[in-house]
């Protein structure tokens, strides 16, 4: 039974996310070249490398400072639309988390909810627009539902990761209504949204980091 995520687990999450976007860089870029401008994998890998370099040079001791550092580094290194969107996600998570060294299930869920609200405020996306929202929103809902149902953090973050993956897969037939993909109209259907794919990796690595730190 695991009750909270500490800064070491958050740091582990960030490292895992860096590793997986690096490993899957070509896949993310391939998804993006079908309906966007073929730079999502390279941009996310470059951004997360910058984040890890920054944290390796001296990781903040509190959750808010750690998450804000991740956000500001992504904003200044990713570019395109993903930089401000992922940057805002982490900045808002940090603002919600506050100057603590660990987050319990409720605090983690509130922090991710704040991050999701930030993405919506920044990108104005709605459900079904074929964006990262389509993976992030069901994941946050699943996290809340699991915690309300009494699940522990490991089970709750796993449920969130599964909901994200289902949301990502559901973007396949959608016609994009936001971002560069929207210029393609009907031609954007039949392709996974690259943003929902990287967001699913983010939720999957959170579940892995949570599971690992509970051992």
């Amino acid at each position, binding site marked *: 039974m695991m009750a909270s995520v500490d800064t070491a687990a958050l740091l582990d999450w960030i490292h895992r996310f860096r590793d997986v976007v690096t490993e899957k860089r070509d896949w993310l870029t391939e998804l993006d070249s079908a309906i966007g*401008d*073929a*730079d999502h994998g390279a941009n996310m890998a470059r951004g997360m490398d910058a984040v890890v370099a920054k944290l390796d040079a001296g990781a903040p001791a509190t959750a808010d400072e750690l998450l804000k550092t991740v956000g500001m580094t992504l*904003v*200044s*290194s*990713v*570019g*395109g*639309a993903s*930089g*401000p*969107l992922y*940057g*805002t996600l982490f900045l808002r998570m940090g603002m919600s988390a506050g100057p603590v060294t660990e987050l319990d299930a409720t605090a983690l869920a509130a922090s991710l909810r704040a991050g999701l609200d930030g993405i919506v405020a*920044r*990108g104005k996306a709605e459900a079904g627009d074929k964006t990262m929202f389509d993976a992030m929103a069901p994941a946050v809902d699943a996290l809340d539902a699991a915690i309300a149902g009494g699940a522990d953090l490991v089970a709750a973050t796993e449920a969130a990761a599964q909901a994200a993956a289902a949301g990502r897969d559901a973007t396949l037939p959608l*016609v994009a*209504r*936001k*971002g*560069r993909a*929207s*210029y*393609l*109209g009907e031609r954007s259907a039949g392709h996974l949204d690259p943003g929902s794919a990287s967001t699913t990796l983010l939720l999957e690595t959170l579940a892995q980091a949570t599971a690992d730190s509970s051992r």
Partner: protein
Amino acid sequence: MKKLINNPADVLDESLRGVALAHPELSVDFENHVITRATPKDAGKVAVVSGGGSGHEPLHGGYVGPGMLDAAVAGEVFTSPTPDRVQAATKAVDRGAGVLHIVKNYTGDVLNFEMAAELAEMEGIEVGTVIVDDDVAVQDSLYTAGRRGVGLTVLLEKLVGAAAEEGQDLASIVELATRINGQGRSMGMALTSCTVPAAGKPTFDLPDDQMEIGIGIHGEPGRHREPLAPASEIARQLVEPILADLDLTGPAIVMLNGMGGSPLIELYLMYGEVAALLEKAGVQIARTLVGDYITSLDMAGCSLTVLKADDELLRLWDAPVNTPGLRWGA
């Protein structure tokens, strides 16, 4: 594709180095990829900042100078600059009267400039924003990221630059910029794709006997593809959707713009065709630009921009401007 480059990764830095050497009247911040005037405008005047991905030269860096922009932020080729760099430009040129951000309507540009404006406002700099979305090739604006910002950006930068130089305040300049965006429209076409240096091959395949109608400025696909036609027919395909979108009868400022890979002799030929069609439709061409003003790297093709003008806009248009890309009266 043959290019005049060294290492593809160094194209932007090395190009900015050339800009700095060729134009001592400009100042280049190599860390942030920001071009500013070497001599700032007088304190108390609104500063005008534009920017976006590179590859559209002379836009935006070539329009920095008295009568036009105070700073241009250059992103990587076809990639929006990040908020910290836009903020650096904003901070560098603020003269205490606020700063106008001119943003072309692409999701990346809009989001990065929006964050930059928030960062600048946290430091006490007032920022106004105009989002340019003049491309009639994007039809369905409710279910897309909206119309793209293209040729009208050049005319808008000139006009609001003149208003800022006159000493108009930020609210008036935002209003002027919004009005200009509302009464100008553009449409473009391509004979070839373009080649991003880092990619090394054309962004899309366009056979020798085909042309792409309704292109943007990043090698995005257009409205449709069809067999290559004579200039008179291409002119009709540029003029008609613009006039169908907005009543542009009366005085107008018209730009026939080259996409980077078409010679001036063809651009003037095209201008002759579109001018005849526009005049016939009741557009009175009051001022004209013909040439490469907002390009898409080495793409062959052209775009047409028509801006409905009045006495105030013509006065601002005729005001002195002294930049590498646009210069008169100075």
